[in-house]
């Protein structure tokens, strides 16, 4: 149950990043250069998709705290490194990003580095 919450939290975090990307694509595509909310960061953040992504992030944080109340941090924290795999996979599937072999290698290296950091931080 607690583990399921941890995985739910990680999935929500990954989805929120994908929603962020969708929001930025819309931002890049729909607005004319002249009417881009440049300088107005609040206008940028006030987009529905951005608010949704922030909301998903908040839900992820709540799930993570609930999971941590029942799991050891040393057990749960390394799971966070999964996001560095999930987000690029989602970007590849949803946005057809060209993920080269080198990029995959780089992502795996980063993932293992984060894993080492999280293992060492939580003990």
């Amino acid at each position, binding site marked *: 149950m607690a583990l399921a919450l941890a995985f739910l939290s990680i999935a929500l975090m990954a989805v929120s990043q994908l929603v962020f*990307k969708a929001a*930025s694509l819309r931002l890049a595509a729909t607005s004319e250069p002249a009417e881009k909310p440049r300088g107005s960061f609040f206008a*940028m*953040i006030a987009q529905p998709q951005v608010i949704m992504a922030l909301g998903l992030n908040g839900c992820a944080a709540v799930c993570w705290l609930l999971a941590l109340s029942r799991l050891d941090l040393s057990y749960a924290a390394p799971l966070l490194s999964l996001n*560095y795999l999930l987000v690029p996979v989602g970007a590849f599937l949803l946005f057809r990003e060209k993920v080269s072999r080198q990029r995959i290698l*780089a992502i795996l*290296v980063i993932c293992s*580095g984060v894993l080492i*950091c999280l293992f*060492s931080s939580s003990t």
Partner: protein
Amino acid sequence: MKHCSDNARGLLALAVSILCCAASQLLLKSGMSSIGTLPALDNVPAYALGLITPPIVGGLMLYAFGTALWLVCLTKLDLSIAYPASAVQFLLIFAGAWYFFGEPVTTPRLAGAAVVLVGVLLLSLDRKPTSPTTST
């Protein structure tokens, strides 16, 4: 040429966003640590008022600024580049926690940070940080 400048702008936005988010974490940490004891959680207004201190409000504002820049960065760069690259935050937060709060730097932590750095360097060698769909 346009691609070039778009990439450069995206990378700049990414770098500043990462800096802001790492700095916001450090500010929030210092703000929360210096609060001492908060009113009990059953008194929500008093609890919320207790949270309004310069480092906490500043940290949240920096976080919002970092999020906006993250969005700008994503209009220029692939998510599969920008998100893994944001792992550099780990290094910055470790460095800041060591410098400002005297948190210990352990060998495995340093090793992990070094591996992340190698990964990000590998990522930066990618010739095409933007897929066609994102460079509209």
